[in-house]
């Protein structure tokens, strides 16, 4: 018995830093993934950043502080943040209802949730225009206002948090909640200290997705928002008009800024999520 153990020891004490121990199949797999990732993500992103950097820092700064652009960025980012906050609350609630409650029409609701995913965005835009446009049958006219942007974001990002949280919620053991209850915890405390930490990673992932989707949204809002400068113009429209005016560096600058903001939001969400998941 003792001999194989010793052999194992020597194997472990070998300098592992130099020896990556990649088998042929892992090597090929890793290689293909990296190549794929580089072609699709890294190289295009680098190209955008390079294009933005071409004009130098002053050019970059001048582009993003252009009054009209700054207004568009402000509208987009604030709306996206707002929508993400709404989604975190409403999405978690919808997921909760879908998992924990039984009611007639549940199957139908399951199906409807995914519609904003499945719908071509321009169709969504048309739907929003006919519902909340000038001739709104509901009497709600949001056309050509900043609110229309918020509304369109809300529509297209609805499923993200729901669909991230739902499977995690389904996997939660109810006896854990019962254990907490038997120790004297009320429903709110159980949610805050037992359920929420388990859901935090899923909620954060859903929030990141919905923020990223909102920041880049175009199709669903162009019809309703009217793209009025300083009022209802979003960054994606701004980028498009920069391209149309043959201002590639400007478009790349705005794009880079959006990239940085999205990255920052993802990092912040991850930090918050870790904090919540560790608490309890």
């Amino acid at each position, binding site marked *: 018995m003792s001999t194989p153990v010793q052999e194992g020891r020597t194997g472990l004490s070998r300098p592992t830093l130099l020896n990556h121990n990649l088998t042929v199949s892992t090597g090929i797999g890793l290689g293909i993934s990296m190549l794929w990732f580089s072609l699709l993500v890294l190289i295009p992103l680098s190209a955008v950043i390079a294009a933005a950097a071409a004009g130098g820092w002053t050019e970059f700064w001048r582009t993003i502080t252009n009054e009209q652009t700054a207004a568009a960025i402000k509208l987009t980012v604030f709306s996206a943040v707002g929508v993400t906050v709404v989604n975190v609350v409403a999405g978690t609630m919808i997921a909760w209802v879908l998992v924990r409650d039984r009611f007639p029409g549940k199957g139908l609701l399951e199906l409807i949730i995914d519609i904003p995913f499945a719908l071509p965005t321009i169709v969504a835009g048309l739907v929003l225009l006919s519902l909340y446009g000038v001739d709104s049958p509901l009497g709600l006219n949001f056309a050509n206002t900043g609110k229309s942007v918020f509304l369109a974001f809300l529509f297209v990002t609805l499923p993200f948090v729901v669909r991230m949280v739902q499977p995690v919620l389904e996997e939660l*053991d109810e006896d*854990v909640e*019962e*254990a907490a209850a*038997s*120790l*004297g*915890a009320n429903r709110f405390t159980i949610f805050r200290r037992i359920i929420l930490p388990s859901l935090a990673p899923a909620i954060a992932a859903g929030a990141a997705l919905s923020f990223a989707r909102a920041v880049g949204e175009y199709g669903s809002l162009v019809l309703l928002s009217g793209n009025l400068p300083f009022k209802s113009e979003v960054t994606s429209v701004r980028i498009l008009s920069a391209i149309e005016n043959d201002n590639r560096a400007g478009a790349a600058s705005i794009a880079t800024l959006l990239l940085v903001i999205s990255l920052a939001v993802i990092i912040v969400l991850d930090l918050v999520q870790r904090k919540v*998941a560790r608490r309890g």
Partner: protein
Amino acid sequence: MSIEVKNINKRFGNFVALENVNVSIPTGQLTALLGPSGGGKTTLLRIIAGLESADSGSVEIEGTDATQLPVQKRNVGFVFQHYAAFKHMSVAKNIAFGLEIRKRPKDEIKDRVAELLELVHLEQFGHRLPSQLSGGQRQRMALARALAVEPSVLLLDEPFGALDAKVRKELRDWLRRLHDEVHVTTVFVTHDQEEALEVSDEIVVINEGRVEQVGSPDTLYDSPANDFVMSFLGPTTILDGTLYRPHDIDVFTHPGIEGSIPARIVRELRVGFEVRLTVELLDADHEEVTVTVTRAHQRSLGLSDGIDVWLSPTHAAAAVPVP
């Protein structure tokens, strides 16, 4: 009496889980709810805890009517089969949970957690996450968590059911010793008759939603109330229209004793120190009877296949007429 359960009825749809159940559970003792799966014992335990509500009937804990009290207010400790660990909290945090809910001072919580970690032999593991513990360790953590709030009763639902045989046996002995130390009124659910016989002071046998018998392990084993209790507590065999335990039947190689029944050994099966003999009666029906003898006894009498023997129940053998 620490827990008084009166006239409890519970249905799940058309399924009758509990029918008119009355049980008194004595203070400071270890009581087992024993019965086959789906017999209603877990439902009864959950009703005592307040995790489930009965359709009718009442539950009294330590003299106060708890029927309408929510689980949070019953001051019971509950231990689940699958540990129900708070996965994102350390072992120490898990144990401290109930005390934090009760808003005890920080120092007091710290001392109490240290004390409990020692009690369940997890002193070295306080900072670990439950996922870094073995099943047995997790269940001990769950027990410490339940004991932390000084519950008036400790309820355990198949506490060792998810563990492998060896750990189960160790934990069983340990629970018995722990109970001798802590003396909290304890009720545990099990479908393992050996576990119930070995650990408990009192056993409540539950089958198909009804209480079949209540008594000490000795009483239940020696004077079972009916054929169900008898056969649930151990192997049985039928001789002469009566249920006996296979080791309660004497085997003779001569027709010495009056009333002994002639038979022939048709099979023998050796399991460790015991030998299970299948014996065919030499009457018209050729009924088969199982008899267990020790290996030494088998040797001294030379019992083997094809030998003619005479059977007679031992003096004062537990016996129940077959319905």
